[in-house]
């Protein structure tokens, strides 16, 4: 379904054996796919908890108290946020092709190979032209 998730390099090999770093990154992406499902399942756990009786006995509170549900839901929520923070740093560490600033430079390479006949950089040449004009 997902041929490439854009985290690898442009010409990365698609072989059964990849270097450790690439392998780690791919397993990381597997975790990223599973995480929302796990989160959804955890959020659904309270549905299995005992509910309030239809005919409650007087003065005996039945079912799960609201406070426990509240604590559980927000604990899972905080857990997910912590996971997201961790994943964010893992992405920064492992998916360098995606986070690296050289991605834009790659584009520039493709579209704009430097002119072979003009070695000086454009801003310098513009500045030079301007200096000449002022002189």
């Amino acid at each position: 379904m997902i041929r490439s998730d854009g985290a690898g390099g442009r010409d990365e090999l698609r072989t059964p054996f990849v270097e450790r770093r690439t392998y780690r990154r791919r397993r990381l992406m597997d975790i990223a796919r599973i995480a929302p499902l796990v989160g959804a399942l955890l959020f659904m756990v309270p549905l299995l908890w005992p509910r309030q009786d239809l005919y409650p006995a007087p003065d005996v509170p039945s079912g799960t108290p609201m406070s426990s549900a509240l604590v559980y839901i927000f604990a899972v929520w905080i857990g997910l946020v912590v996971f997201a923070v961790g994943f964010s740093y893992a992405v920064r560490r492992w998916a360098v092709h995606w986070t690296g600033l050289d991605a834009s430079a790659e584009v520039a390479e493709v579209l704009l190979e430097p002119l072979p006949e003009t070695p000086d950089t454009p801003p310098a040449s513009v500045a030079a032209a301007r200096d000449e004009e002022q002189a």
Partner: protein
Amino acid sequence: MTSLNLLALVSIGYVSLLFLVAFWADRQALRGRSARFMRSPLIYTLSLSIYCTAWTFYGAVGYAARSGLEYVTIYLGPTLVMIGWWWGLRKLVRVGRSQRISSIADLLSARYGKSNVLAIGVTLLAVIGVTPYISLQLQSITLSVAIFAEADPARSYNESGTVFWIATGLACFAILFGTRNLNANERHHGVVIAVALEAVVKLVALVAVGIFVVWGLAGGLPEVLARIDASPIGRWQVDGGRWVAITFLAAAAFVCLPRMFQVMVVENEDERHLRIAAWAFPTYLLLISIFVVPIAALGLELMPAGSNPDLFVLTLPLLQEQNGLAMLSFLGGFSSATSMVIVAAMSLSTMVSNHIVMPIWLRSTDAFGGASVSGDVRSVVLFARRFSIAAVMGLGYAYYQISGGGAALAAIGLISFSGIAQILPALVGGLFWRGATRAGALAGLFFGFSTWGYTLLLPEVAAGLFSPQTLTEGPFGLGWLRPQALFGVEGLDPIEHCVLWSMTLNVAAFCIVSVASFPSPMERLQGAQFVHVFDHSAGPGGWTGSVAQSEDLMIMSQRILGPEEAQAFFQAAVERQGGPGPLPEPTPGFLEQLERELSASIGAAAAHAMIGQIVSGAAVSVEDLLAVADESAQLLEYSSRLEAQSVELSRTARQLRETNQKLTQISEQKDAFLSQVSHELRTPMTSVRAFSEILRDNPSLADTDQHRYASIIHDEALRLTRLLNDLLDLSVLESGQVTLNVSRRSLSDVLDHAVASALAGADRALQVHRDHSREEVVLETDVDRLAQVFINLIANAQKYCTSDTPELHIEVTPSDQQITIDLRDNGAGVPEGFRDVIFEKFSRVTPERAGGAGLGLAICREIIRRLGGDICYLHGHSGAAFRVTLPIQSKIEEIR
């Protein structure tokens, strides 16, 4: 108590602050100098918070007071979506950026082969789904103002007037900052910054009220938990179906809502911001919702019975005489409502103007034959956007007035969510399934949307449309068509029921029709581009930093325009802008000029694609490629025409060159000929002059000498005459003006005559051997000329044969069409090196023995060629041998 006037003052002050911030941000962005934080992940995360509208701010507490913890599902859905950002949102954002998508309708239209029908469908769906939502925001502001009005002793409060002015003000804000200019990226920095500021305000407000409630009213965390458990919502009681359904709806709406799509995809500066937003936004949602239950529980406990739980956030601080906190809380609610309305109106207007107004306008101008000038269209687009914003806001206002603002806030929100969620199957299918087709998407949307309208929207919102009988027994007594118990599924909550059926029918129709239909080529191309976007598009980075852009533009322009022209152009732009840097800022005006400049060289489509690639980092879309291909095809055709012309020219030139060469050659030949002729004429003339001078100057010459000299002069004169005759003959023959007297005669006779003439008066005998039997061939030709040739050849043999007993063999070989006559003598023959030139004029093998001028054989060849035959020297014989070939039936007509 806070007076209404103070409230109005604070609100106006707050709105002015928003205006100022938005104005400042827009200005900075226009100058290309947007501050670093304006492009930061923080701003992106905060702008995402328009998900939390007044429905969240006020409604969540009311929701919690009514149904316990169920409200939290509204935030769990988006949290799960954000957690799965890596394979979900990231792809969406990448597609949006690389395809330069301007709205969710645009995205679906682009994915399914630029289908405008689909775009119109999604736009209408969005307008229908979002309009109640907008009126909900207006209602919330009105309600909150009413709370203050009730408390104000000097009340002069007109509800509908307030709503009208609020709607007008919000429309003005959206028009001012949402349609200030047409940006290629559809980004609105001013609006985004204002939304981010409002996000901070609403978070601070809600958290402040929460802290006040937990630590101020309840007295700490354990106490508040105890009081929650003791309250009417103290037990865990949620409907499992609703829990799952609403979580799903919220997740779907988070992606599909036009305003969310606007801030999440269209306004996205850099795909990598998602990495931060993935945990920052869930944190924001968590903070927003963590105090909701305490506020609800305390509100239920402390507020008088019958008070609206939707407004606990406001009424609780007011009840406790916390006017400052109440004011902050009001501003928080105001912020939530205004930011949502502004962005929603803006995104809807983009969709309405791009997919409904503009196509109609363009078609109508086409009908009038008007050419669409770019500046012209720009102003029309801007007008369409402004008009659409006003219209959307008007619709929201009208809906508010009609509905009377009675229903609970959360109900409208959920109805709106489930309508918008109908887009989800087409969206997700479009991103992950290449087999999804336009027909499938249309079918899915149609079924999902109509099921939603039938089962939820009409019964809940426009209840008057259905009679109670229809609701309980179904239309026309068809029980299985009951709007809230479709196909006999009873006992479900309306939302659950609607989600179940609309999504089932939607997905089923989408999949079945997609599989059954066949996509157009454009759809298939776009499908591949979308599904494999990470293979097709460039990296995630935004082209932030204007200087980098200008440099890249400069490099590109240099390659296309040439260094001098490009530098002059950029220099002029710098002077126009008056900026300090060596390079101009890439303002829209400058980019437009540059594009025009480049399009002169490489075509409009290619120029647009290249500039788009650099400025927005967007990948070149299929449409661009098609346009570029069109242009290249035109260029190719033109160049192939040029090529054909140039080939023709070079052919003509070659012909001219050849002709010229020939002419030069002929001229040289003529010169050579003239010099030879004059040389040949001079020799006899010299002797004539010399001997005539002797005769004139020596009258005492002996008679014998006189006679001898006179006869020499006579001989030389004869030779001259002969030479001139030959020359004349040759020139007549060569010029083709000769008239041939064709007659029939036997070859034998011709040869007899030739031998007799040639050997008459010869000083030495030449033995001629002939086979008369083979010569009895009747020829039809110019007999005299032929005889002339034979005479010449026999005379040559007689003259040049070196043998002591000269002999000449004449052999005739007749065949069907032609006759061959060989003349061989027994002399030494022509020396090897001269054999090629003996037929040339003035060529003599042995000049010292020359009797003639060397024209004889040349004349022979000309004559024979005139007669349709050929003459050549025969190699491989000891003596000189010539072969004359003649046609038996002379083709005089052709010869001439």
